[in-house]
């Protein structure tokens, strides 16, 4: 990654702030290192005390046991389908709606936007039972669709995209609008590329949310073939796994988190590089 264009001294991060951030990073990192360490230890050794993490031997047995259950790959696949489906769906719906609310005029725009903002405040608990009965009636339980659709109602995405579309300087589409460029072409060719950082942010968080979602998949996907990874992994825990299988549990955590880490690394580049110099100045 090339360094960004010249910025005045005042903008550069001060050394003091950076050092403080480094210290915080150590604190933030410790628990993660801890859990990776635990995942590489024999469960019996951990039962005697977690200090065992700091000493040899280490083992991959927990991961082998995890992968040895052939169902894990099915759950992994379900989680992937749901997370990707939900992410794509949210990005498409939110970008379109965000563009409409942020840059266009249409009747009842304000009213509808306020209504969507209201949606931001709806806790999952307020709709989950009604939604369960509704999907029952639609026959959507134990399907990927049934797991994806609830996530598509996220008002957060629309809110975020609206904010970003609005922040783009007016000059950029003014000329195009004067030329009577059709709105969709303007959206697709000019505006959408400018929102890439927002897309990346929203994409990551939608993926994360879908990947880690627990309650809805638990009560909607009740057939084991349709379990997502979170539900499946929770179902494999023996009654008292926390004391008897700390290493195994940690391995599950690391295993389940890997795809999300990969997604983050892929998207992160875009967040930093997308808005560079020229277009937005």
């Amino acid at each position, binding site marked *: 990654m090339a360094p960004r264009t010249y910025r005045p001294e005042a903008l550069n991060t001060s050394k003091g702030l950076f050092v403080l951030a480094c210290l915080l990073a150590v604190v933030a990192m410790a628990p993660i290192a801890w859990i990776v360490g635990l995942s590489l230890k024999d469960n019996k050794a951990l039962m005697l005390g977690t200090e065992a993490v700091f000493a040899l031997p280490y083992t991959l047995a927990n991961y082998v046991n995890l992968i040895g259950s052939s169902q894990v790959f099915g759950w992994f696949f379900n989680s992937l389908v749901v997370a990707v489906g939900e992410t794509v769906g949210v990005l498409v719906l939110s970008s379109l709606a965000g563009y409409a609310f942020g840059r266009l005029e249409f009747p009842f725009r304000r009213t509808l936007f306020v209504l969507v903002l209201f949606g931001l405040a709806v806790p999952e608990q307020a709709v989950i039972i009604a939604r369960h009965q509704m999907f029952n009636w639609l026959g959507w339980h134990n399907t990927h669709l049934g797991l994806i659709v609830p996530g598509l109602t996220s008002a957060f995405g629309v809110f975020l995209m609206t904010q970003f579309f609005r922040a783009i300087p007016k000059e950029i589409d003014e000329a195009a609008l004067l030329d009577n460029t059709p709105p969709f072409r303007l959206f697709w060719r000019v505006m959408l590329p400018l929102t890439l950082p927002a897309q990346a942010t929203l994409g990551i968080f939608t993926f994360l949310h879908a990947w880690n979602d627990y309650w809805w998949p638990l009560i909607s996907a009740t057939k*084991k073939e349709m379990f997502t990874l979170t539900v499946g992994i929770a179902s494999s825990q023996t009654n008292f796994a926390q004391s008897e299988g700390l290493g195994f549990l940690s391995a599950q955590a690391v295993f389940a988190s890997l795809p999300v880490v990969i997604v983050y690394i892929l998207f992160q580049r875009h967040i930093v590089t997308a808005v560079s110099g020229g277009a937005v100045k």
Partner: protein
Amino acid sequence: MKRFLFGSVALMAAGWASLASAQTTIELQRFFGACDAEYGSVTDVSAAVGECGIITALVNKFQADNPDIKVNVTTVEWPGYDQLNAQMASGAAPDVVSMHYSAISDYQSRGLLDPVDGVLAAAGVDPAAFTDAGRGGVTKEGQMYGLPFDNWTMLFHVNLNLMKDAGLVNADGTPILPKTPDELYAQGKQFTEKTGKPYLVQILANETAAYARVLYTFLQQQNSDFFADPTAIKLNTPEAAAVVGMLKKIKDEGLTTVNMDYPAAVSGFINGDGGIAINGTWLIGDFVAQSQQEGTALANGYTVYPIPQLFAGRDATYADGHGWVLPHKERSAEQDAAIAKLFKFLADNDYHWARNGHLPAVKSVFDMPEFQNLPHRANIAKIAETGTALPAAVMRQFAIQDIIGEEVGAAVNGDKTVEDALSTAETRINELLADL
């Protein structure tokens, strides 16, 4: 990788088999965890260890013995009731489900379960073959609503090595256990002074169940009929105040570990942080395994007893258990027959289930030499008689347990007075039950 390939081949083979012959399928849903990696193909039940291993091997064996029946097992996170509720609400309940005795009344009273009497009769299983505690646990309004599988209680798990240091071991090697609350304080004090460690290892943090089970136990020992009316609890009693006062005194005098949650209490006991752990039957197997290893705090020094009778009244211990219930749904005659076979198989093999520490629900297991030879089982066998559940008609036992745990915990921690905690608990529980 090898295992994975093997698994796929086995899966495909199973697929072909089901196409080739008209199998009867039973959907079985249970907690106890998944351990396919280790036990996926084990059919030798006696080789399996632990709740998960034994139940997995049992089902494998049943499948091997009955190729015409396919048991499709779904494992759910303990205790699995959110999922079951969702399935029942959408009319997609499985055929056979694992359920705590204490939860059966909720489902039975709502018409969500089918009685099993017919199935047991078809299988030739005599209801009298089950222990009173087991049979009582599943019997509602005169009918059995589940196959009793075990009973479990809280126990006194004893670290004999520390008890020796404290001078609390008899000449014959058995531990000296208290017979009254005063003896408990005195022995606890002696233990703490001699070893510098707390006498009891209790689960006092992030916990409600343990408080409730201990309270029920000591109320039953005082013959306090706190659920004389199953729709209204009585906790504003001298008996209840005596129990909670005792628990508080144990904490205030430093006779117990504090701030430990469940996993901390288990590993704390294993590491020799205290003399006696008050915890469940399911840990016997793990603790025995620890005691057989040299160099551990429990090495050659573990034993286990029921919670001793501390109050003049009767010897009693609060007991719950696991059963197998049939959610209400349409089933074919073949499925009913297959379930009958499965239930008979599970009842016949109850000994194996009891190997992990639970008490058998089938009477005859107590007389089996194999069972009697299991470590420490002679000490706790009397629970088959002393184990006492809440009255069968008491509903919402999980919710009641949470309320009791919260309020008793507040009293033990000193956040509330004993009287205040008990009367608040009584009011909350009775409001809950009055409003059903």
